[in-house]
């Protein structure tokens, strides 16, 4: 039962408090002017933080064995591959002018 860690309510309460606070923060930030990319960057950053908290504590990955951690990393990695490589097309389409247009 080595990998079977029981997380206590105290931890859960701390985490949910963080999650509520971050939700309030992201709504507040949305109405502030931080300049062009920064609003988006902060919003995504907060979402990533919240997701990480849920994965690590609610889903117990912090205490999980290596295979589980690997599965999480693998899934996220391939999602990034899908997003990044698809965007590599859209981001560079304008680089080469189309003759005649």
């Amino acid at each position, binding site marked *: *039962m080595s*990998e*079977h860690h*029981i*997380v*206590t*309510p105290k931890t*859960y*309460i701390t*985490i*949910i408090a963080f*999650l*509520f606070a971050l*939700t309030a923060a*992201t*709504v507040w930030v*949305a*109405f*502030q*002017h*931080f300049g062009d990319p920064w*609003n*988006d960057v902060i*919003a*995504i950053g*907060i*979402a990533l933080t*919240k*997701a990480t908290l*849920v*994965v690590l*504590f*609610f*889903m*117990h990955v912090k205490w999980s*064995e290596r*295979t*589980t951690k690997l*599965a*999480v990393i*693998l*899934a*996220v990695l*391939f*999602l990034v591959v*899908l*997003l990044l490589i*698809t*965007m590599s097309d*859209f*981001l560079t389409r304008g680089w080469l002018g189309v003759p005649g247009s």
Partner: protein
Amino acid sequence: MSASAEAHSPELQHHFDSMEQQRSASTLGMWAFVAQELMFFGGLFTAYLVYRYLYPIGFELGSAQLDIKLGGFNTAVLLASSFTMAMAVWAAQTGKKKVLLWMLIATLALGAVFLGVKYVEYSAKIEHHLVPGYNFESDSPYAGQIKMFMALYFAMTGMHALHMVVGFGLLLFYIYHAAKGRYTPEYSHPIELFGLYWHFVDIVWIFLFPLLYLLGRA
């Protein structure tokens, strides 16, 4: 292989050697399932990213059509349901059968609130003729782009809501068995695995909320 005491658990399936093997196998299976769920939503996130890049103005205008209060409220509701779900897992692991039952019921109730709010939001969109493929109308010069935003809004939140409905049905099943006292510290992993699913659905919403409701408000 010497049969340990717990190998005689009535919940042990014949092709596993021990409860521990059964637990670790089903946990890994659930994580593999969650990984494929992530890629499933990943296709929608890709479409969102591409069209937001192509149509930044239309997406700002589209985002302004959404009710930030309802969205924010629902985010809190779903986070709270994740908390009660996590508590349910704790109760199952420590053998607190009553707490388990009530935490599952609380999760169900919060899920119902979420879906109820979603229903209110969808009704408003129908009323305002914002449903692509059904009654979309707009006189904005960016009508086409707003329509694309709304199409993705419905695809993403709709697919999320569908997962909520499935989770809802599963919860009823677990509540039924929890009421009968089936889950013990030795046999808590069905609750743990369902928790993984529920938290995953929560995570999807953690991203949907800023992407759909918040970006471009400043």
